């Protein structure tokens, strides 16, 4: 770990919120700054474990990539998927403009 007693600033937490795509209220930001500092402090105890000779284990089974034959199989019907979309036009999902200020769907 990078430091013995990590502490997150309110600004760090605000940056993480944007990366997380979460619009947090001022109150939530205040709360999370304290809570996350405490949790990060807690998990930082792993720094004391000697892992210099240990490879990371991302998956319990050491799974290998699984290949299948490249054949077309049935997939979900378009309407059954679009049925759950908040906004759609029968063919596509509708979302606000990706660039700029206008054109929200």
């Amino acid at each position: 770990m990078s430091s013995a007693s990590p502490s997150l600033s309110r600004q760090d937490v605000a940056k993480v919120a944007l990366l997380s795509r979460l619009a947090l209220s001022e109150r939530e930001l205040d709360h999370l700054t304290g809570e996350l500092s405490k949790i990060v402090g807690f998990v930082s105890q792993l720094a004391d474990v000697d892992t210099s000779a240990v490879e990371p284990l991302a998956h319990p089974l050491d799974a290998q990539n699984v290949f299948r034959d490249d054949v077309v199989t049935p997939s979900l019907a378009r309407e059954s998927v679009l049925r759950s979309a908040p906004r759609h036009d029968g063919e596509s999902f509708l979302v606000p403009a990706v660039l700029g200020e206008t054109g929200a769907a």
Partner: protein
Amino acid sequence: MPPDPLQLSAVELVHAVRSGDLTAVACTEAFLARIERTNGVLNAFLAVDREGALARAAEIDARRRSGKPLGPLAGLPVGVKDALCTADLPTTCASKMLAGYRPPYDAEVVARLRHADAVIVGKTNMDEFAMGGSNENSAFGPVANPWDTSRAPGGSSGGSAACVAADMAPVAIGSDTGGSIRQPAGLCGITGLKPTYGRVSRRGLVAFASSLDQIGPMARSAADCALVLEAIAGHDPGDSTSLRDEVPSYTRALDKPLTGLRIGRVPEHFAAGLDPEVARGVDEAFAVFRQLGATVHDVRLPHAHHGIPTYYLIAPCEASSNLARYDGAHYGHRAEPGKGHRAEPTNGHRADSGKERDGAAAFESPLVEMYCRSRAEGFGPEVKRRIMLGTYALSAGYYDAYYAKALRVRRLIRQDYLDAFQTVDLIGGPVSATAAFPLGEKTGDPLAMYLVDMYTVTANLAGIGGISFPCGFTAGGLPIGFQLQGPALAESLLLNATDRFQSLTDWHRRRPPLAV
């Protein structure tokens, strides 16, 4: 007179339906009536499919009458955790984000239950996105513990545990990422099995932490768990992490004598923090296993005490990635423009950058603003906390210090188990440090809540199976849980050992004094 379905085990129910002593309709009606009487108090079910269940039961009865073959779970009512997709019932994961959501397909486990002629009676309550150990993180209200309705049932599969404990269904399906089957089973006095990672397909299980999640059965006994596991286990081409190993007959392996079985006991499990009443119950369970012919040996799991910090890095990291799919565009909640609270800019630049005029300017684009507001409105506090923690631990500059470090410790934790299973066949111990705790006791302190999984997370990190079952009661009348863990794919042995324990004890037959 036909038997009272509420008094029968799942094995007996299936037999009674098959032989014609009991119709599937009568069986389903009995449990639906029980749900109707008790759900107002317990809140164990988020959706009940009265019509669908009765129609299914009638169809099974008709098939039996005409002599057509029936599946191995014919007529068996099942409660399914709301984390599993059901095409004909809402699937919410107890989140406002997915309120009313109807998935376009059934989870593989749901499809296998239907194929086995089980009757799905409804979807059970849970902690939102399976994140929690008390079921208090449900967006649709907490579940009450049937043994004491002022206490938590545990979590995250709290609804599944409570519904079995209160006879609202003879069996239920749960999922276990860090203890979410075993801990609530322990706190509610039922039997719950977390199979080896990959034994049961995860396709259609709403993903929380994909390298840890596993679906398993919850029931009143090991024999009933074996019946259900046999029907849901096995390779699924739709889940590339599901194991290809053949599924043995779990139901036929139950009565093997335990003579010579070596059970490990971890001295560190009995260190400070373990409630003395729980410690006593657990030690009495070891004595029962000795009576059954097993021997008990001290084993060491030197890195097990790092389980909680390791888990609370890996699981949130995986969750932050998995839950990125809730974007307000494809399905789930979407914030309406201009509605709800005016979100503050969250890039932290407002105070020190004169360029930012107002909140909206900080969101890069209307699309990003829609993402941020939809997610802020749809997710509850614990889900936000874990997404934030995972995003932080994976972000530039911290990845090696937190995520990669946790993955290295994970390997040490797994190696401890591999070493221990060189000298013992199974490892026994407590499921939780205490019996069921009062609702509200830990809700103000996230870290205290995280610690409830201290005895269970290591099995998920190592990918091995574990089972929990009642081994006694506290003076206050709350169940005490015992956990057995085994090497990968030792489900037969876990179920066999638990069944033999239950042949000598009657803790699993006790029923809560629920006044309804």
